[in-house]
């Protein structure tokens, strides 16, 4: 992958500020964090969910539970275009009944991942409400789904790919970047629902 054609759409400071703002919006809308829980969509949403937990603790002085959900068993394209994707574990160790679930993902695109994640949540219980948070909304929705909390709306082409890099192993700074893939190459935008 050629890093030179990547354009950074959010740098580390912008990501940190956006998450702080979102945490504030969440507590304002839910009048605190009492019934709240966070569920990160594997894998990009998970580190964001943990960051939001830290911010919510600073604002509200309480720890909200964090779970993770893997959407691969709920995909609508098994066997359509490629080998069965590697399934990961979902880990929701608390009761969802009556809670407000804040579903967290890094990039909102077609909306199919969110649809799958909501279906998965419902198999773990009956939340009072599900709210959606994403760091980047890149457009191109294929389902009637909208986020309740958005870090930044970014205009993209379909053959571009959006990556959110957090806590990278080579300790490069946090960032969200867009790069072109060449339309025929199945990159993240083809693989992502």
């Amino acid at each position, binding site marked *: 992958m050629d890093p030179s054609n990547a354009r950074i759409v959010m740098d580390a400071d912008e990501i940190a500020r956006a998450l702080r703002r979102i945490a504030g919006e969440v507590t304002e809308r839910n009048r605190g964090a009492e019934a709240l829980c966070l569920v990160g969509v594997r894998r990009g949403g998970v580190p964001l969910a943990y960051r939001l937990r830290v911010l919510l603790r600073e604002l509200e002085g309480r720890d909200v539970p964090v779970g993770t959900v*893997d959407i691969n068993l709920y995909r609508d394209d098994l066997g359509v275009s490629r080998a069965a994707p590697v399934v990961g574990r979902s880990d929701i160790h608390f009761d969802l009944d009556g809670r407000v679930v804040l579903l967290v993902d890094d990039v909102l695109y077609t909306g199919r991942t969110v649809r799958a994640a909501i279906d998965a949540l419902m198999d*773990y219980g009956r939340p009072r409400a599900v709210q959606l948070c994403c760091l980047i909304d890149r457009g191109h929705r294929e389902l009637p789904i909208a986020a309740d909390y958005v870090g930044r709306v970014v205009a993209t082409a379909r053959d571009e790919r959006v990556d959110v890099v957090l806590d990278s192993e080579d300790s490069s700074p946090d960032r969200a970047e867009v790069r072109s893939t060449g339309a025929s190459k199945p990159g993240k935008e083809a693989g992502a629902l």
Partner: protein
Amino acid sequence: MTTKHLLDIETLDTQRIVQFLDTAEVFFDVSRRKVRKVPTLRGKTVINLFFEASTRTRTSFEIAGKRLSADVVNVSSSGSSVSKGETLLDTVKNLEAMRPDVLVIRHSSSGAPHFVAKNTASSVINAGDGTHEHPTQALLDAFTIRRAKGSIRDLVVTITGDVTHSRVARSNAHLLTKLGAKVRVCGPRTMMPVGIEQLGVEVFDDFARAAEGADVLMMLRIQRERMGEVLFPTAREYSRQFGLGRRVLSMAKPDAIVMHPGPMNRGVEIDPEVADGPQSVILDQVEAGVAVRMATLYLLAGEAGQSPLS
């Protein structure tokens, strides 16, 4: 190698085996949730085609398919056109016309699933063929061992019984040696196939020695219908030499686990005290079976989508 069939362990590479086992971990969780069902194989049809009696394996495949939201149909040889003399190929061609996605086949002839796989567009899973292989049994055994012991590499696994006629032993010997276990096989000389050493296993005819220092004691079912034949004098005689009781169990490592693919002949190849004892993982094997078969159906359905045939 990835294909849309699961016919044997012998031709699977290690990476694919590990993929089956890792994927099964996820499905193991699904079976322990409140809602034990995911929509993954909605709209797919699985036919269980069993030409031999089976309760555990057929039920396990049926539950696995249903927990994935597939439609599962059971066909057994008694009460079907098979008992009216239809050939295997005709049966398969007729079922094929109803457009199933997966055929799960158990047959008394070794190689029957391979034959069917060559003559159908569906995915084929071997649920036990003659004395050849029983791949999902070996996968669920490996899954159970891995959960109990953390890893399979360098474990000593002793498989005891009628090795010649056991497809469970054959599949397990292939799989466990591929994953780096030291496999011992033990049984009367008359029940030990010639050239079994070529699978990379060590052969014993003294059960106590075979059990010494073992991490896993895997017992095979003695087929009572073979009793009275030359190779098998009486149940009591067999039990005295090769039945697993407390004495032989004490030769193995203190934390050794005891396995049996079922159905058990209590008091013949295994003492009830051991079968129901704290070291037994026999019912864990049954639970693992559903998870492993869910993983198999899931991965093969993905592969089938790749193929121009379907």
